[in-house]
């Protein structure tokens, strides 16, 4: 609780500080900017006005859903205009009968994720954007299924509990049901003790384990709401590496290379960026600071200093608030960039 209060206070202080320092020159800019509370789907990222340099890596889930852009043109809360889904085709198709051994042999295949996203413009006259993304996890130290020590410990836990259950099964005979077997206070207490001990050792925060990922996404836009005449207008490649610091911190390094069609010239223009981010906290709540430099073809470099707060609202629901200062050399101004986002992982 102390750590929670401290982190929240730090975040508020950083917000107030940045806001007062740049108050005279800041032009409020409401820009959607997906952040990293749960693994970011490449396709979702692709539909943002500011694609991220760091695409936060994360352990594979069979399916995850993202919603964003809850404000309409008048800043009223509305139905989200951005929707994304990311899924592992391997887990979705073969998960039910997938053995541990099979997963371990082809972990890369089951960690491969596809994302699809759609975003509507602010009004009926603006384009509908669609994006497709692919994410490959190069290494993932947070995946317990490829951790031999974890698997040995988990199997031992299962064997101990099974031994307790077997004593009851033998006493009750062939017709015993699971509820009859488990309806025993001694068994319940012993099982809980074993589980608590296991959880204390293995299921503590694993949010900051070493990990690296490569992702690719492309975007297409249509001028009508039925998404006819889709035209490809952006391609992006990301690489991200994460390095854990004890149980409280994580350093992320990321870069991306992108090419996007410029409406005025109808030609593609290349850009690239490099960023580093430092997280402090736990899996359930954390703050971060990041620095980013980006360079676009035929223009000067832009710099971005950002901060954020991520909070696990419920088991599958994450809330995220970010605020940062962007030095935009194109318009020669500093912009305050804020965002609020909810993400849901099934």
């Amino acid at each position, binding site marked *: 609780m102390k750590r929670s209060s401290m982190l929240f206070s730090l975040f508020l202080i950083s917000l107030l500080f940045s806001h007062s320092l740049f108050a005279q020159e800041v032009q409020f800019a409401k820009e959607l900017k997906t952040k990293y509370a749960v693994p970011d789907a490449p396709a979702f990222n692709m539909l943002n006005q500011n694609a991220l340099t760091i695409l936060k890596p994360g*352990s*594979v*889930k*069979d399916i995850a859903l993202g919603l964003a852009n809850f404000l309409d043109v008048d800043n009223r809360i509305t139905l989200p205009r951005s929707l994304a889904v990311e899924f592992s085709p391997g*887990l979705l198709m073969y*998960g*039910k*009968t*997938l*053995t*541990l*051994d*099979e*997963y371990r042999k082809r972990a890369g295949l*089951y960690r491969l994720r596809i994302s699809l996203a759609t975003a509507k413009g602010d009004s009926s006259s603006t384009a509908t954007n669609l994006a497709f993304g692919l994410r490959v996890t190069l290494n993932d130290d947070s995946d*317990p*299924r490829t951790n031999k020590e*974890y*698997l040995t410990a*988990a*199997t031992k*836990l*299962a*064997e101990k*509990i*099974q031994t307790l*259950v*077997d004593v009851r*099964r*033998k006493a009750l*005979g*062939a*017709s*015993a*049901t*699971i509820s009859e*077997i*488990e309806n025993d206070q001694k068994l319940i207490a012993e*099982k809980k003790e074993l*589980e608590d001990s*296991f*959880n204390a050792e293995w*299921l503590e925060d694993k949010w900051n384990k070493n990990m690296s990922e490569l992702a690719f996404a492309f975007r297409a836009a249509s001028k009508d709401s039925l998404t006819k005449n889709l035209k490809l207008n952006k391609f992006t490649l990301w690489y991200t590496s994460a390095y854990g610091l004890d149980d409280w911190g994580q350093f992320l390094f990321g870069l991306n290379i992108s090419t996007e069609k410029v409406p005025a010239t109808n030609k593609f223009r290349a850009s690239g960026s490099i960023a580093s981010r430092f997280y402090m906290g736990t899996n359930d709540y954390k703050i971060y600071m990041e620095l980013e430099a980006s360079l676009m073809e035929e223009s000067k470099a832009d710099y971005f200093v950002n901060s954020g707060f991520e909070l696990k609202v419920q*088991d599958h629901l994450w809330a995220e608030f970010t605020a940062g200062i962007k030095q935009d050399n194109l318009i020669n101004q500093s912009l305050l960039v804020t965002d609020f986002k909810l993400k849901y*992982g099934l």
Partner: protein
Amino acid sequence: MEIVKFKKSGGPLYVEVIGGEAQPGSYSLFLWEADGNKIAFEVHGNFLSPDDDTHKLPLPNEANNGRTIDVGITFVITPPIKNYYAELKITQDDKIIGKVFTEGTTDKTTITILLKAKLSMEDE
């Protein structure tokens, strides 16, 4: 309970225990006598490797008539996957003669389930 019919004159009966959803776990298989009070055969295993999860039931085949295959399985639910799936497959002469399974989703650390099948000899 699933009734699994087998042939007295066929080959030995095999029972395979399958743990799905890539969850670690262990199991114990009891083959209960027909009266349900005594264990005729017992074997234990885990899901670290599927190579040793197929078990040959005692011979002669007719001794298994009326016996109950009772498999207790404990999974350690390993995030981020919260689903579990367990299957019991009975084969004779490489043919599946019976299959029992259960599946679900849980937020618990572990879950224990039972899969049962009663063996019945066919008239020949």
